[in-house]
């Protein structure tokens, strides 16, 4: 089941887009009086220069990859899940509640429980827009965007109000989870933890589901043409809903990762639009799961490298955001640009042939 949407031509345009974006970034640096070569050098060093930063890059990539795949599976079945951020918050909150209420319990019991809670919260929150879409044709983009705000502010209210910790010195947030539950770090001082293995397993499972199973096949056909899926006797509604449930559950797990690997408790600033970054990665790679894994690494490196660049060469890290946006811009325009170029070439060839023919006749 090769994905026809990604081919060598696409990789070429992707490469050109990235290169062109970096070039634009370099020009901006030159205009503002910075040395682009040293700035990019610092970026690379900041992302890969030491085991610690490599760990940070990988940790960032894990988040991007999980959220990216979550977007992809929804889109695969024809539902565009923009609500991952809200699902992520609810998953984080649910797992945090388990984490501090089960304080002292064995991690063997508590951690699976936390996973179930996070997945259930995320999945439930994705289930609502999925059903609305499938049964009542309510636009899922609008619904999920709105539901994001509801979830984020609800969690913020809980963390500042009813569930606020009594510890001193913590402005807002739930009580801390049992330190025994936290994922151990793999590279000292870096934010890379054992979550990377869990993420890898989940990614492979979802990839398998999408690409190798008849259920994934039904999701794909539903996403491409739901009328045809229905015509072929598939349960297209069910496929779409399940895709959203999986997407939501994955976002819930990302929330859990933030709580159990990074923060140690739920804080209102749990995510800095992590889901939207992943969504962009998925869109650039046209929802191809393997592509998303690699693009996550690239974007992860850019994000982590950017802060090093700011620190060491004085170029603002916002520039990396500019570069990212330019890449996305180019990739969004890719289809139009390549088809224009292709037809231009075809026309030119045609003209040349005709002229040759006319000359021959003359």
């Amino acid at each position, binding site marked *: *089941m*090769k994905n*026809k*949407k990604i081919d060598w031509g696409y990789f070429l345009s992707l490469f050109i887009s990235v290169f062109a974006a970096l070039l634009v970034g370099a020009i901006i640096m030159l205009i503002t009086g910075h040395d682009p070569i040293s700035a990019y050098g610092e970026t690379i060093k900041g992302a890969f220069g030491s085991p610690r930063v490599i760990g940070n890059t990988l940790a960032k990539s894990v988040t991007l990859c999980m959220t990216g795949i979550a977007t992809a599976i929804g889109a695969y079945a024809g539902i565009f899940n923009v609500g991952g951020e809200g699902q992520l918050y609810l998953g984080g909150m649910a797992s945090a509640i388990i984490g501090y209420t089960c304080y002292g319990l064995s991690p063997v019991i508590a951690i699976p429980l936390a996973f179930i809670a996070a997945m259930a919260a995320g999945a439930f929150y994705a289930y609502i827009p999925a059903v609305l879409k499938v049964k009542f044709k309510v636009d899922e983009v609008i619904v999920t965007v709105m539901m994001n705000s509801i979830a984020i502010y609800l969690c913020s209210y809980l963390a500042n109000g009813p569930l606020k910790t009594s510890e001193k010195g913590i402005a807002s947030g739930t009580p801390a989870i049992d330190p025994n539950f936290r994922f151990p770090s793999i590279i000292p001082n870096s934010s890379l933890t054992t979550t990377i293995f869990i993420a890898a397993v989940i990614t492979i499972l979802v990839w398998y589901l999408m690409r*190798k*199973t*008849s*259920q994934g*096949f*039904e999701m*794909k*056909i539903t996403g*491409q*043409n739901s*009328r*045809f*899926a*229905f*015509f*072929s*006797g*598939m*349960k297209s509604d069910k496929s779409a809903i399940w895709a959203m449930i999986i997407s939501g559950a994955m976002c819930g797990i990302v929330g859990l990762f933030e709580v159990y690997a990074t923060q140690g408790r739920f804080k209102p600033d749990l995510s800095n639009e992590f889901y939207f970054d992943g969504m962009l990665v998925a869109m650039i790679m046209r929802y191809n799961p393997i592509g998303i894994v690699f693009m996550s690494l690239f974007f992860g490196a850019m994000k982590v490298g950017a802060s090093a660049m700011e620190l060491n060469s004085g170029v603002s890290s916002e520039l990396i955001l500019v570069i990212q946006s330019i890449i996305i811009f180019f990739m969004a325009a890719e289809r139009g640009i390549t*088809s224009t170029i*292709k*037809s231009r070439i*075809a*026309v030119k060839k*045609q*003209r040349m042939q*005709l002229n040759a*023919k*006319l000359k021959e006749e003359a």
Partner: protein
Amino acid sequence: MDNAESIVKFEHISVQFPSVLANDDVSLEIKKGEVFALVGENGAGKSTLMKVLYGMNEPVAGKVYIKGELITKYNPSEAIRLGVGMVHQHFMLVPSFTVAENIVMCKEPMKNGIFFDEKGACEIVENLVREYGLKVSPKDRIDRISVGLQQRVEILKTLYRGADILILDEPTAVLTPQETDELFDVIRRIVREKQMTVIIITHKLYEVMAISDRVGVMRRGKLVGVEQTKNVNERILASMMVGREVLLPKLERKKTSGEELINIKSLTVLDNRSLEAVKNLSLSVHAGEIVGIAGIEGNGQSELVEAITGLRQYKSGSITICGKDIKGMTPGKIRDIGVSHIPEDRMTTGVSLSASIEDNLISGKHKAEEFAVKGIHMKRKPIREYAKRLFEEFDIRSSSVEISAGSLSGGNMQKVVLAREISFENPVIIISQPTRGVDIGAMEFIHKLIIDERNKGCAILLVSADLDELFALSDRIVTIYEGRITGEFVNGEIDKSDIGYYMTNASKIDE
């Protein structure tokens, strides 16, 4: 006619579309006051060439002269200025406007320079009607009049804008035989009395013979010949179109008779606007017979087929297939009890355009043990082998089974649908518009396939807008008008021109 001055001249026209050369070095002269027919299979480049004339396509090479003037800017308003009018295959009318409003649109009469002058518009239309003899009533709303009348409105629209070169793109595709005759009368009249020049694009050869003075044949973007109509016949034209001798063979029919597999009793089905599209309809189809439904499009055929195949719920009545009442069943369930469906719109219902051909071929069978272990893990290899086998069996022409179905031509795409549906080996097959947009070569093949299934004992319900097709394939023909059955005939006992009366309300008037 031979000495008439030329009014339109194409010189070495080539039109390039992204992946195909749609017109390849076409040179053609059209003479003032003639009816010129342009024929060719689908995708031969007829419409493309005419859209060059109408300014909608820009050629990459070559020149166009209209009335001696070289065209430099390709856009429709320039073409209209020079007197070119085009009636497209799909009408470009505003359904909620009146006839008069549609005709004067873009050049409306004004009251005090501000307000639309409705009375004036009606007068204009009445004058046009008198002048050209095309009867319409100016105050009727477009969505309330028949397709034949809508076409007249389109023609009047171009006349109002001063056209004296009229291009008609597949004008008879949506018309009954009677309406076609009327259209031809109109064409003859405007050519004779108003010295207009008419270019008619078609693929129906008997129409070429009936109406045109000269005929041009296109094949794969090239103009392969221009002839005086009186010097050719349908057979010559057909072989020019296809590039080889075409023998639409007499299809061999085995005598069969069998049990009733489809039984429809007083069926009523609602359309998307909740109006009754099928009204109290009863019909039965037996094993080993093809029942053809003849009717003008939009008379409930689509809704009937959708109801039988589970794509649409029906309001009342009953449908029994292979002895089972299908009320409330999904298309998947109905498929399981033995119904294959070749839908009228293959692009939206028959295939998934972005899925690969092999994925399209196994859709609906994708959980079979043959292709998926325990209905879960899909096995690529058997799927590929299966797809390749169907490729050969059904003569599907494509470079590989892995490319997307959307890249196939109409005929090959239809063969993919047929291959999938027939290989279910179901006893009942519902077929809608099997050869719409399909070239002659593929049409031969598809017709043979349908007859083969009949001879094997399938019960086949065939809906087609093409009367020739219905007469070629059906054992019985049922006419439908406004959702009701208006007549039922054994094929061979009625002629093509008589059946038109039953497809319109003419039969009701007779009663």
